[in-house]
């Protein structure tokens, strides 16, 4: 049997989910026997591959760039997993929603800047009005809440998904876990 193709993606999040993923430590070696990591912040692939079996997505959708990415990922992934509270519920990135992006940009780049007070407008992607969880843009197959989900959660969930065993997520993790 050929190995499953696994991708991990980092949208608007703190990378904590990826850290927690790596916290699986020696169990990563077991996992490596079952999957090939074809795309990830820790893998040097620039383009999202055409065919991916499992895509783990960290982070909320906060910019036009994120929106473009998540749609592409959905089109090329068989199984899409929302990894962590940002992807599942918006979480900390969504805390700007009540006051809007202008207020945030103003605070970060004008009020709190000592030199070069200006809001970046080239290279960086435009922000969406509201930050939303990924399932508001595309269909999500599995939700793994947690901030971040623990290494044990990742291990149990991925093992179950790869081997096809039953998976009881609420028994493993919750919002804010």
């Amino acid at each position: 049997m050929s190995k499953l193709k696994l991708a991990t993606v980092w949208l608007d999040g703190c990378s904590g989910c990826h850290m927690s993923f790596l916290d699986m430590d020696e169990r990563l070696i077991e996992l490596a026997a079952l999957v090939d990591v074809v795309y990830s912040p820790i893998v040097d692939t620039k383009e999202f591959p055409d065919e991916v079996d499992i895509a783990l997505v960290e982070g909320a959708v906060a910019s036009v760039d994120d929106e473009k990415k998540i749609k592409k990922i959905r089109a090329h992934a068989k199984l899409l997993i929302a990894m962590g509270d940002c992807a599942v519920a918006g979480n900390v990135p969504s805390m700007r929603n009540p006051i809007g992006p202008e207020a945030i940009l103003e605070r970060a780049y004008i009020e709190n800047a000592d030199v070069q007070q200006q809001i970046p407008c080239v290279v960086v992607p435009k922000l969406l009005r509201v930050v939303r969880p990924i399932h508001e843009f595309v269909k999500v197959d599995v939700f793994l809440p947690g901030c971040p989900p623990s290494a044990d959660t990742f291990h149990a969930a991925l093992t179950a998904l790869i081997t096809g065993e039953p998976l009881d997520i609420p028994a493993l993790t919750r919002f804010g876990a």
Partner: protein
Amino acid sequence: MSVAVDVKTLVIDGQNVSARAGQTILEVARENKIDIPTLCHLDGLGDVGACRLCLVEIKGTNKLLPACVATVEEGMEVETATDRLKKHRKTILELLFAERNHICSVCVANGHCELQALGQQQGLTHVRLPYRNPELTVDASHERFTLDHNRCILCTRCVRVCAEIEGAHVWDVMGRGINSSVITDLNDPWGSSSCTRCGKCVQVCPTGALFDKSKVGSDHPKYPDFLPWLNLMREAQ
């Protein structure tokens, strides 16, 4: 000689149970180790039947009854965890999570929150409804406590404990519908209100809406179980 007690027998989730007349379905279920989820109910406070999580099915009627206020009747057949009820409970929790800004990861009540625990218990892994993300305030004017409207679920436990147990009636609800909010006095800052600083409201608050300033991070467990004891001691006097 024993005092005559009006005993009712009924069935809850297929289990034959007996109860005293006037007991609520919730009381009887809990006595028999049958768990019915609740949020606005708290032992020791008057019930309002507002959160709708404790709704149960009664054989013979299509109407769902809140177990916290519905009293037992002879021969009643109660179901507490049908698929229909589970679906409604999940939706109600989703409504709560989407209503205000419940960011569990950075909440003082993370790990000690009844809403969070119920979400997990009812198998909620995500919220299908769009998040409303309203702009709400935090009242930190009180010397000892803070009110964060972002986390409030309007269960009115604080209103009831202050009126019924402390007798101060500092808390009440203002506004209507989705714009309702809890207030102290006539919407005065908590710090300059007629608050007696007893702190009962903080202890009964199921979420991180009311919290103690002296605690840091999410190390903020609450102990609302003093209430039934307090009531018992008062009755004894």
